[in-house]
């Protein structure tokens, strides 16, 4: 089982306590009504889906309940680091 470091609890906890929540650092457009359908589609559905280093959101659902961000390698499934929500991209 993978152990994931929760930046709020500040300890490594078992993967089963966490929920994956998609790519991180995707900002909601400030004024969605001015967007074209293509731009809105890009915001809603189009993701980087990289092979390798990926910034993603996780939630410590069965723990402190907080969302945070992580850098994980999608090839090796290794977590490089985790950091609190709101902190700049790592």
């Amino acid at each position, binding site marked *: *089982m993978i152990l994931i470091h929760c930046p*709020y*609890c*500040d300890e490594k*906890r*078992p*993967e*089963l*306590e966490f929920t994956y929540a998609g790519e991180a650092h995707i900002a909601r457009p400030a004024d969605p009504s001015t967007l074209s359908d293509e731009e809105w589609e890009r915001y809603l559905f189009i993701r980087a889906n990289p092979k390798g280093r990926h910034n993603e959101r996780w939630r410590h659902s*069965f*723990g*402190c*309940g*907080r969302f945070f961000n992580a850098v994980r390698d999608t090839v090796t499934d290794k977590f490089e680091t985790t950091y609190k929500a709101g902190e700049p991209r790592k």
Partner: protein
Amino acid sequence: MADALLRCEPVPAAPAAYSGVTITLAPPMRRWSLRAKSRQALETHLGLSLPRKIGETLGDIACLGPDEWLWRAVDVEPKETGAGLPLSVVDVSERSVGIILEGHAARAMLNAGCPLDLERFAVGRMTRTIYEGVEIILSRESETRWSVDVWRSFAEHLLLSFTTVARNR
């Protein structure tokens, strides 16, 4: 409220003894969910000290998250619920059922469904975690005594799971 505190279904009130572990219903208690961005605001409001670190307990209060505390005690009633203030004090007494597991095999039994490293789980610690897909709040009251708080609707399933593990050890 007095009636509500006596509610124990679906956990039977009589203790069940198995080899190495006894499963008992926890004594009736009040539960308060305390939420605030600022710990100091809650401390001032309640006139109490709150634990600082997630997982720590101070008196009857445990810190479950960066802005969340759980206050469990037999007979407590905060004077004010904090209306109008940037905090919330909510009575969640009826939401969960408490189950006590006691005995030298209790830790091994819990580890049958909980992925935490319970050997290194210090006495006095309380945390939210998972047991076979069910959200629980787990605390270690002594070396061999564990308390599990579970939402009432999941209690029947959890208890069945506990007794199955206990019986098959």
